[in-house]
């Protein structure tokens, strides 16, 4: 049970931006994160996959402390995550997050969703914030929807707005917590394409997903989790063609052959 994870030629990150060291977390009796060590380099795209209940979403949410941890340390750009309060809020502004259920502010227009953080947190003036927001909305292909409310948009459009909202804070790293899992199949690609572009632009990304195609094409490294542990880490080609651990072989055999 406690064997070291199979680390396939990726080694410690050269210029680590996010570092998790011996992170543990329990939900009651469930040990949901067990001694997680993970280092993510600047500009790296790490895709986290694994069966449901393996702790991958929880791992993603601990990085901006939406979930607290029981032990271990998490540092972002060399600074440990602070306790709840103003300093944590400041740090969270540097860590973009995209949720499975979009979580756009339902009572605000698309434009206001992307402007709010810039004016309230970054203290930018309204005109600058709106100009940035419109540029970002154009970039993710929903510029024409700026004055609508989230409920008037399709799921794929909402998720792209959510990506723009996170990007508006000019984050150092972007976390994606199953960004396409709540989408109708025909909308998945429009979101993945935006993420692909982001990856090509050099954004540091942690992506929890079931989209193996995205993992293959965009990831620098695949992290496979099961039962609260990182079981295997490898570059995508090697992971998908030649998984080392039995858990990963089993998982891949279930999802890839049909």
């Amino acid at each position, binding site marked *: 049970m406690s064997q070291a994870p199979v680390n396939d030629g990726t080694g410690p990150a050269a210029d680590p931006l996010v570092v998790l060291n011996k992170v543990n977390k329990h939900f009651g009796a469930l040990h949901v994160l067990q001694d997680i060590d993970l280092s993510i380099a600047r500009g790296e795209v790490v895709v986290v996959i694994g069966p449901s209940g393996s702790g991958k979403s929880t791992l993603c949410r601990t990085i*901006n402390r*939406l979930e607290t941890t029981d032990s271990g340390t998490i540092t972002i750009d060399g600074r440990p995550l602070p306790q*709840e309060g*103003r300093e944590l*809020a*400041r*740090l*969270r*502004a*540097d*860590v*973009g*997050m995209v*949720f499975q*259920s979009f*979580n*756009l*502010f*339902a*009572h605000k227009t698309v434009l206001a969703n992307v402007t*709010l*953080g810039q004016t*309230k*947190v970054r203290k930018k003036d309204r005109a600058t914030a709106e100009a940035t927001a419109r540029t970002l909305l154009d970039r993710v292909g929903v510029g024409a929807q700026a004055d609508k*409310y989230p*409920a008037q948009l399709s799921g794929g459009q909402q998720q792209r707005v*959510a990506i723009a*909202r*996170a990007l508006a*804070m000019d984050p150092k790293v972007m976390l994606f917590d199953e960004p396409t899992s709540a989408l109708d199949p025909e909308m998945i690609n429009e979101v993945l394409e935006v993420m692909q572009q982001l990856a090509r632009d050099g954004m540091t990304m942690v992506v929890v997903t079931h989209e193996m195609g995205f993992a293959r094409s965009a990831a620098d490294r695949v992290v496979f989790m099961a039962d609260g542990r990182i079981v295997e880490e490898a570059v995508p080609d090697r992971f998908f063609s030649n998984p080392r651990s039995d858990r990963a072989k089993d998982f891949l055999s279930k999802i890839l052959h049909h």
Partner: protein
Amino acid sequence: MNVLSDHFAEFREGFLGTVELTASSALLALVLGILIAGFRVSPVPALRAFGTAWVTLLRNTPLVLLFLAVTLGLPALGLKGWDSFWLAVLALGCYTSAFVCEAVRSGINTVPVGQAEAARSIGMTFTQTLGQIVLPQAARTAIPPIGSLMIALAKNTAIASGFNVAELAALQKQLNADEGYNIYVIFLWIALCYLIITFAISGLFRLLESRLAVTR
């Protein structure tokens, strides 16, 4: 024989007294209620405990006892010289704030937790998250019960008549005592005055409700 035309000045004074008492107490109740609701959902345990204690104490005390507590208790604590009007506002406002708090909190509970998580994830503080994201959405659900509470408050102001405040219910006692008007006629006019106030409140809240309903 017409009590309203004979005593129009007194009726006007009583009506305005009730309106002022209701408006001042409502303002205090709303400000305190929203603040205490913020306490009850805050990440600080001491504030949460204070909020719970506030609601438990005030919601479970009969209003008349609260009136007695402020009229007898405050002078005993050395806070003398308060006008009976402001003592009544204090009792009514604090009492109603406990109910407003719970209405606001039930509204907060209808806002999906992801809304607050998204706000926190872009670096908003607790106060910003509450003020910008959670409360505006909670208002939709909280407005109708708060409207009922404000109507209850308007009628509860009648208790102040027993504590030396010039308002409608006090007028009834005063008029009964002299000149021997028909008691039912006096009741009718006073009831009509209360109806004007409560209808105005429900109209105001219906307006608020429809305003908030469209912005989604």
